[in-house]
């Protein structure tokens, strides 16, 4: 018998949390992206797990779309990072606080 879905769900939640924490604490825009990817992977894992417990294929189908979104985001996001880097020679988001208040 397979391990309970709960384990995977907790694992996914943990991954999501780690990703969120990384997003909050890392300064490099690139690594923050990676953290977002981690979170999306947590989501994917959740979907797949639910797909199993619900015995329903659509959870897996959705993962597909999430991946596409992730890819699209990365494409544009990296483009933006590049654009910012060209101007500031840094990927650290802490240097981006010209606008505030």
């Amino acid at each position, binding site marked *: *018998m*397979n391990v*309970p*879905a*709960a384990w*995977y*769900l*907790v*694992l996914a*939640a*943990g991954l*999501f*949390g*780690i*990703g969120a924490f*990384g997003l*909050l*604490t*890392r*300064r*490099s825009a*690139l690594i923050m992206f*990676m953290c977002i*990817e*981690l979170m999306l*992977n947590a989501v*994917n*894992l959740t979907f*797949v*797990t*639910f*797909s*199993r417990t*619900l*015995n*329903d*294929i659509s959870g*897996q*189908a*959705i993962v*597909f*779309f999430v*991946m*596409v*979104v*992730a*890819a*699209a985001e*990365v*494409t*544009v996001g*990296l*483009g933006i*990072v*590049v*654009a910012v*880097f060209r101007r500031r020679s840094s*990927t*650290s988001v*802490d240097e981006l606080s010209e606008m505030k208040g």
Partner: protein
Amino acid sequence: MIGAAYSIPSVLVFVTSAMLILVGAIGVISVKNPVHAALCLIMTLFGVAVAFVAQSADFLAAVQIIVYAGAIVVLFLFVIMFLGVDRREHIHFEPLVGQRAFAAVGVAITVGGLIALMARSHWVSGASSVTTKLSSGGGNVKELGTAVFTTYLFAFEATAALLIIAVVGAVLLARRESATQGEESA
């Protein structure tokens, strides 16, 4: 205990995937070098792929490896190298006061709360198989394909738009600088 209730392989697979995922994830958020972080990310992605396999999502596992590890992370690495930002980040120093503590508390509460909520619902409460049943074993590619082209047909079409716009955007962001130069040189 564990072994008593669940089959050993499944537990092992879970532990493996969990280890891969968590170590990779912690690596992503803790290593100083972006390149290493990207590599850690790959590790996590593998872990997730393992978890997919363990839960009868073989096709997705493959896609996970190909698309994520193969394309996305490579893209990351490419950019890292391209920009030459593989320097170390001083992660021991946190310029924003209290950021880490608050982040830890906030994330802990959130994740803890989410888990608590999920546990309350016995981890799942939905109706089984609204769309198509998940066929047991690894051979669910067909069902997956069917779902994508029926239930999620519109979503599938929309992804086309999404990708196109991403491409246009990326091109624009990348090309822009040269356009400026072109203008400036002109």
